[in-house]
């Protein structure tokens, strides 16, 4: 089992969700986040004081999948989120040691 974590542009969330559904990845958790990558930020002025805003709004996706689903999941996210510009986002994959469904107590690959 793997945990796929992606940071994407907020406005791509719906597209990514759709692509994931097409690959039959239905479960996920979403959080908002601020991110700092290659993408440079923008300048705000508040009452005459300039501020460089380099923490940009992103959406974080956490998707736990069985190993055979890792590549389809990655493909779906890239598919939905890619515009080819910096700031499109980043995907991280981690090992998942265990997974438990609280309602049933199921464990492991069945519980994903």
């Amino acid at each position, binding site marked *: 089992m793997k945990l796929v974590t992606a940071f994407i542009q907020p406005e791509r*969330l*719906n597209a990514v969700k759709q692509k994931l559904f097409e690959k039959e990845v239905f479960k996920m958790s979403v959080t*908002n986040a601020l991110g700092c990558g290659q993408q440079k930020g923008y300048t*705000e*002025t*508040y009452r005459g004081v300039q501020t460089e805003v380099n923490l940009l709004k992103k*959406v974080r996706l956490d998707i736990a999948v069985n190993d055979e689903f890792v590549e389809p999941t990655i493909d779906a996210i890239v598919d939905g989120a890619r515009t080819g510009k910096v700031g499109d986002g980043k995907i991280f994959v981690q090992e998942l040691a265990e997974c438990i469904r609280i309602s049933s107590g199921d464990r492991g690959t069945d519980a994903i």
Partner: protein
Amino acid sequence: MRPIHIALLCLMSILAVAPLSTAAAQEAAAEPAEEAPAPPADDTAEVIAALEAKVTELEGSLQNNINIVWTGIAAFLVLFMQPGFAMLEAGFTQAKNAVNIMMKNFMDLAIGTLAFFVLGFALMFGETSNGWFGSSLFALSGITGSDWTFTFWIFQVVFAATAATIVSGAVAGRFKFTAYLVATAAIAGVIYPIFGKWAWGSLLLDEGAGWLEGRGFIDFAGSTVVHSMGGWLALAAVLVRGPRLGKFSTDGNPQAMPGHSNPLAALGVFILFFGWFGFNAGSTTTGDGELGRVAVTTMLAAAGGALAAMITAWAMFGKPDASMTANGVIGGLVSITAPCYTVTPWGAVITGVIGGVLVVFSILFLERVLKVDDPVGAISAHGTCGAWGTLACGLFGAEAIVGAGDANTGLFYGGGAGQVGIQLIGIGAAFVWAFATGLILFFALKSTIGVRVSETEELEGLDIGEHGMEAYSGFQIFTTQ
């Protein structure tokens, strides 16, 4: 930014030059000395006559003061509708555009005031020989002391600002700020006052009468003159600008783009409700018992509109939708604005109820059929309900019954179809004038300084793009919205 700067500078330079030209005029017009008191009469009859004259004059001057207090306060209430609009619009749209909405509302008030001062008031209430536009009283020249015109002006300027601000909500979230500023000046300075002349031109000076009022058109407090005007201008703006990104799916289905704060929107509606008593009852510009009657019809129509819109939405969507109910309140109030002086309390309830039903259907029609994106329902609430309210004058006008005139003009009260015809002419004239000048205005803007912000800016929000700041600093906002 450059073309805009030019536009703004033009406006500022008009403001800067004008005083010079009028200072002299004002100097000349310095208040004449009060007429000398009547000389002491030797004869009893003369004494009595003098006293009688004094009593009559006293009656006039005291009632005038009562009217001034009433109309002044009513004007302030109407001014207070401005934050009502601002909160309603902000609440019904997304957090990322809230600063832009606030700025538009500050600026349509500020620029609208100056444009109406320099130009609009004269076009609307100045002397006219043709009934189409006036041509005296520019920048209030010649008015001094405790002249009624001041109080009248303050009441009228907030009406002009209301007409201008209606557009703001409809184009929320996608309209270039600079283009909005120019549009606002044009609306409050020219488009609104010219139609206003036609229907209300004689309110200040007898020599100011417009052609439409001459035919007997009734619009007591401005369902057509203010609200439809704003609504149809908003329609033109929205058609020229197009919908927000994501409002319609690729197959043309409208998508929900929920507003970011229902309490803010509701606060806005309550503020508008409050201010509307200045709008309607204040339009008597007379401090006497009729203001009470107008307040009653206004209250009943608002109640009817709210209830009817809620029930309509409930029946259609299965739940009592709060945003439709909010529009229902506004719809009821806009509907009663024209007939508030001439209908019975029951007439007011019915007018409001129909307004409340209509606003829901109009919103759905615009969105589903015409594919028009009006985030706050301004076109429906002001345009459609404004037209309905104006028509309602011709249907429910019960002047004789309510004691506001000699004969009922309403079709349902034995007044025949004549008034309906006149009302329809007025409604039509308003639509043609507002929609046509609106299209010209917004197309002109589109082909010069542009009316669209970039797609990136629209997605990121106009607050960052246009104003370089965010509305809710420190709050985590879930930003796919």
